[in-house]
């Protein structure tokens, strides 16, 4: 009865993704911290597991995230209530200006972040602390 085949799904045009098997990320979300734990029942040890990055998937909002959101908002095209914004932006894009500007901003953010991380963790948790004004 154990078969490797799932009932052929295909959500049926509902406009959502219906993968027939889980991605590695999906699997990691599921099988590493959920399910029965055998050594609570039985005295055996787990085999050596080469997994170092489980915690890396926990979402921690950081200054890095904030700066990325801010830049995304900065680049946001709100065509409804900013008639002027759109043509400007289009022009910038066609000249390649927007792209290089964006790149500069991201690099600058990265530099700043490195400075930040280089100092100490207190500076990071302070969040809004500003360096070297």
């Amino acid at each position: 009865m154990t078969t490797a085949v799932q009932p052929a799904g295909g959500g049926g045009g509902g406009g959502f993704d219906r993968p027939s098997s889980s991605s590695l990320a999906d699997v990691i979300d599921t099988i590493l911290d959920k399910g029965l734990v055998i050594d609570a029942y039985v005295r055996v040890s787990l085999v050596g597991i080469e997994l170092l990055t489980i915690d890396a998937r926990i979402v921690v909002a950081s200054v890095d995230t904030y700066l990325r959101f801010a830049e995304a908002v900065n680049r946001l095209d709100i065509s409804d209530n900013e008639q002027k914004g759109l043509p400007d932006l289009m022009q910038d894009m066609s000249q390649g200006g927007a792209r290089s500007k964006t790149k500069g901003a991201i690099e600058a953010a990265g530099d700043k972040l490195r400075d930040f991380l280089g100092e100490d963790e207190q500076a990071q948790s302070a969040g809004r602390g500003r360096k070297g004004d």
Partner: protein
Amino acid sequence: MAQQTEKPREDTAEQTVCYVYGIVPADVETDPEARGVGDPPSPIEAVRHGELAALVSEIRADRPLGKPEDLAAHARILDATSAEAPVLPLRFGAVLTGSEAVERELLAEHHDEFHAALQELEGKAEYVLKGRYDEQAVLREIVTENEEAAQLREEIRDKPADATRNERIALGELINNAIAAKREADTQHALDALGELATTVNVREPTHEEDAVHVAFLAEVAAQQDLEQAVGELAGEWRDRVELRLLGPLAPYDFVVTQQPQQE
């Protein structure tokens, strides 16, 4: 629980141990083609006791697990089973010394509680709904709805990042909080829309800052089409705003609970 794992088994020369995937009703048959974790992967076997069977495969004791193929194999075996039969999934990495230990220490010792749990799961499987916001769409919503965000946006517009660092951080934090609030509301909306198709739900932690919804449902496999249709309607409602994925049937990882070991 008594100590009882010290006896050397006859297979010590090869140093193989028994990897356990999950527990199923005794009448489940294994697919002779199915292969498990490890390198090279061994066939999946069933160790039976009373009303129960454990899905196991042999692995070498000296080789650590954890390669992507190992994780995928563990999930594949259990998820494929869950479409056909109830299954109690074990967390990745569970090993006993041999099939006798599986029968005696795992199945015999917990026969009644496992059996009861399997009966409760009969006909059910886990489905996981994951939604990710379209970044442009959700940011546009927030800037439109939130005056402070709109104002901060004006303050940083076309100014160098260095000169507006504080405003940027304030704006980003505001966005992050606004997304978290939307996630909570949209998760609730998904639960309202799909909850009646589920026996139980488990709201999972987000795994990305733009996650809109991440929920596991325990639902009847027979009602899978209803669930798919309901998710389809939700996807239509959230078109261009949230990208939805539905996984399953999966083994009910979110819904099996390990009891605290009793100190005797």
